[in-house]
């Protein structure tokens, strides 16, 4: 299970990277593995408000649908529209295939560092 050390993670398996005051958000390797082949992603829009702990959209694999829970509150400043036509990149490159960028960030959930997230995954898996 790949868990880059420089990222932060939510208990619901999203990752967050702070680029200055922009939060870059995606789903972890654990999440894409649990989902299976992703065939569709329901993306939010630029300008949408997001709230920490609430769904920002969902991803569909062949067998199930799963909410992506936003780890931060704020305004979406950029959406990775390329994912709409190539949702499978979430499986092949979960840390490169960011989903949304949020700025300004007004609130964050409690986030785990890589070591704590690894322990959390070990418990769940």
């Amino acid at each position, binding site marked *: 299970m790949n868990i880059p050390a420089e990222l932060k993670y939510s208990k619901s398996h999203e990752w967050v990277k702070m680029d200055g005051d922009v939060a870059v958000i995606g789903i972890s390797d654990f999440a894409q593995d649990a989902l*299976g*082949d992703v*065939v*569709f992603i329901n993306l939010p829009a630029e300008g949408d408000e997001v709230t920490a702990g609430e769904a920002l959209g*969902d991803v569909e694999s*062949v067998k199930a*649908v799963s909410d992506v829970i936003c780890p931060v509150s704020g305004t979406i400043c950029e959406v990775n529209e390329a994912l*709409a036509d190539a949702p499978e990149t979430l499986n092949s490159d979960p840390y490169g295939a960011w989903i949304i960028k949020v700025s300004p960030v007004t609130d964050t959930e409690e986030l785990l560092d890589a070591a704590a997230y690894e322990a959390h995954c070990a418990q769940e898996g």
Partner: protein
Amino acid sequence: MEKKTPLYQTHIDMGGKIVEFGGFLMPVQYPTGVIAEHMAVREKAGLFDVSHMGELRLKGPDAVANVQKIITADISGMKDGDIKYSMFCNEAGGIIDDFIVYRCAADDYWLVVNAGNREKDAAWVESHLSGDVDYRDEGNDWGQLALQGPKSQEIMKKLCDEQYLPAKYYTFIDNVPLNLGDHTIHALVSQTGYTGEFGYEIYCKAEDTVDLWKALLKAGEEFGLIPCGLGARDTLRLEASMPLYGHEMNDEITPKMAGLPCKLTGKDFIGRDALVALGAPKMKRIGMKVVGRGIVREHCDLYTMEGEKIGWASSGTFAPFIGCGVAMGYIPVEDIEIGKHLNADVRGRMVELEIVPMPFYKLDR
């Protein structure tokens, strides 16, 4: 307490992701993933553990009469080695289960039933037995593997001579000697399957299942054979528009609603009178392709484009080979028109579909 097939530990050793299905712990996929497994069956070959299915045998002087009474299909025209698809109906004409029936001999019939309905079916059959018939639930005696895909025959020919492979769809050969390398086992081989692809289902003694699985994977390696889980089994059958009990059928849906063969003239069977009285069905099964953005699955309500709720989706998924979302469902007969668009409520969002002919994918046999 979930049951296990003889291959349970093998699935785990091979990295299978185990889920509960029909009371059994089964692999939903292997590390290859559902899409790769689906494509393997369409392009090369895939191997499925289907040992969770049930087997019921009726034998003896009154076997024919017993079977004729409880199933919709007429078995009187069958020869040894023939197979027929059929259903049990209840007194109201609703479907109890669908299955395939094998004629092993003039007085020996073998029903292969859905895993999830094994107890229900056994109780139904037992409660209707009469006369001189020997009934046996053989579910625990057999292992069953499905080898499906264009390379299936070449793979089987590495284990047995071609004369032992059933040449026609829906026929079988019993007591086929299969050379597993260091020893030979005997199995029943039928040209059947639930994928819409050419292939075989192989029934062996439960204790031979693991050896057979391993021998087939080894023989098939050069052809690209991979093990496949229930996830791909579902996407394959849906892509081929094959109905699944619990989705397209249940005990409130009649054969005619589901578009399944059921002759009402001819022999009598339980439910026939009710089906005759019901006449033409008011709701019928349709096939749809998703033209909007999203995937429509079971339980989604179906609407006309004008916003009237008219039916429901019974199954749906992304179909990897044809490359789009597909679904099956039920709407009123008067609303059915090929090419017509409908909307499905997918978690609060409307996704557009088009009614298309079934099957979505068809093999030229």
